[in-house]
């Protein structure tokens, strides 16, 4: 394997944490006012940004070793987590297209694993 499993797990972790960042930003957007004090006390926004920073930290650790052709496409896992959180937290419907896209992304990641040699 040219790209170590540890690197892939770190990128996976980054995508997972980043998807929570998106949830917090979405929650923050309903309370969004363009005013410095309001922005700084919008804890949803601050938490979302903090989660994105944490996610970037893990992403950088993840891409230290291994190939970007394998690691970068793993970022697409973020779409899958976000799909579930949107359903869970915002009651957005899971449509047939979303399931099809999800299947293709998972299939693509399996193919990449076969190509990781």
């Amino acid at each position: 394997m040219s790209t170590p499993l540890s690197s892939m797990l770190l990128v996976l972790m980054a995508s997972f944490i980043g998807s929570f960042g998106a949830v917090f930003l979405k929650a923050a957007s309903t309370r969004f006012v363009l005013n410095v004090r309001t922005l700084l006390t919008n804890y949803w926004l601050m938490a979302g940004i903090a989660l994105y920073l944490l996610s970037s930290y893990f992403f950088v650790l993840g891409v230290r070793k291994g190939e970007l052709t394998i690691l970068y496409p793993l970022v697409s896992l973020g779409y899958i987590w976000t799909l579930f959180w949107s359903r869970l937290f915002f009651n957005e419907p899971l449509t047939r297209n979303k399931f099809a896209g999800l299947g293709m992304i998972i299939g693509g990641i399996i193919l990449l694993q076969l190509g990781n040699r």
Partner: protein
Amino acid sequence: MNAAGVESADHVRSKAAKSRPTLIVFFCTVIGAVSQILIKMGAGTLSHSSPIAMLASPPLFAGYALYGISTILLVLALKHAELSMLYPIIALTYVWVAGLSVMIFHEPLNFFKVAGIAAIVLGVGVLGKGSKK
């Protein structure tokens, strides 16, 4: 005749308004891909894994600055366009990152990698269609 003229001008205007976000998003995918290459360059030369070492790495800093710019541009473009239409363009980032990785890091490609990336690009495109009601 006058009415027809006004209508066609409106049509041209709405066409331009539709293609502009598309072009901006396309541009975002290119600079987004370049940012990933810089991040990989910076990450690969980190001496240790502290956040301070990350902030002090010029390629990492430049990479995240570019990433920030592309994200802000993307958000601005999304204000004027439907997200579902733009997902397939956003997914192109995966293609550029792979191409640049081959060119700059001489990473090998093989059948499974190409097929995997193609499936992910299609998947992200299809997923976006699901966000439309």
